[in-house]
């Protein structure tokens, strides 16, 4: 709030370069996300998800959070989407257009989502339309800074998270293991 003194930043009609870049990438990201949840081709949906997640990585970069951007690329684009594609293949998802990709719940979903969007955007806009992020100065999320805070202040949650990952690993193996013949769960 200290930094949000009105005279110190320009209005929406005179955007900075970073803002323009953010806006454009944001539009691409949003568009890719929309296509990803509406397309009839399942594999395309995964690929459009890559675009959306990649766009988000660029947004992180623009917000000077470098480390998170790379982690985003590595984990989401690199592994999560690949996993999802494997999942699609393993469940014999149809390649090409499948007319029944959306369930009968679609109108309700649209209504709920639209209402949520309207409410959120209204609230967020109302709250933060005059707030300014000062991006100058040292990068906020360089690997250096992130590593220091992570291993100085967040060591315990970090280690706990590793246990969680281990549990998830074991759980995934147990769940997806093929049972021997005759043994039913």
């Amino acid at each position, binding site marked *: 709030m200290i930094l949000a003194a009105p005279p110190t930043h320009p209005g*929406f009609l005179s955007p900075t370069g970073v*803002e323009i870049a*953010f806006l454009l990438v944001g539009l691409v*990201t*949003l568009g890719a*996300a929309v296509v*990803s*949840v509406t397309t009839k081709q*399942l594999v395309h949906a995964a690929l459009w*998800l890559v675009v*959306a*997640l990649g766009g*988000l990585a660029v*947004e*992180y970069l*623009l*917000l000077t*959070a470098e*480390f998170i951007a790379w982690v*985003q690329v590595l*984990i*989401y684009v690199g*592994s999560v989407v690949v*996993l*999802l594609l494997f*999942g699609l293949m393993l*469940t014999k998802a149809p390649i090409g257009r499948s007319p*029944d*990709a*959306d*369930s*009968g719940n*679609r109108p309700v*979903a*649209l209504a*709920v*989502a*639209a209402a949520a969007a309207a409410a959120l955007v209204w609230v*967020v*806009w109302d709250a*933060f*339309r005059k*707030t*300014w*992020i*000062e991006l100058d100065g040292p990068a*906020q*999320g360089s690997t250096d*800074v*992130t590593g220091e*805070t*992570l291993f100085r202040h967040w060591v315990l*949650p970090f280690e706990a998270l590793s246990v*969680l*990952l281990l549990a*998830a690993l074991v*759980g*995934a*193996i147990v*769940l997806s293991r093929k049972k021997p013949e005759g043994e039913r769960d």
Partner: protein
Amino acid sequence: MHLAYPAVLAALLFCVGLYGVLARRNAILVLMSVELMLNAVNLNLVAFDVWLRDALHAGQALTLFTIAIAAAEIGIGLAIVLMVYRNRGTSDVDRLRDTAEPAESGATPESTDEKAEAAA
């Protein structure tokens, strides 16, 4: 940069993900939409962290945790979907209706019976 840009983008992405969760039929597509929602939250976290210049960088640390948890979630989720697919031969969420109230046809005459009795 105006904070409104990332905040509004995050809100819209969240709602797109929400729509996907509610409207998609294939369970894997539902999982994708969940990823979108998580990422929207991540964007919010990063943006507010940068704006607040938090000394502990709590927002960014939390974002990392979220990403890790999302990875775990997608692993477990896919395992579950695969198992459901192996057992049921489908991964369509709206066809997994074992918890539905059964025998809709049987319920109606009984109910009318009761009403007739109550009226008598």
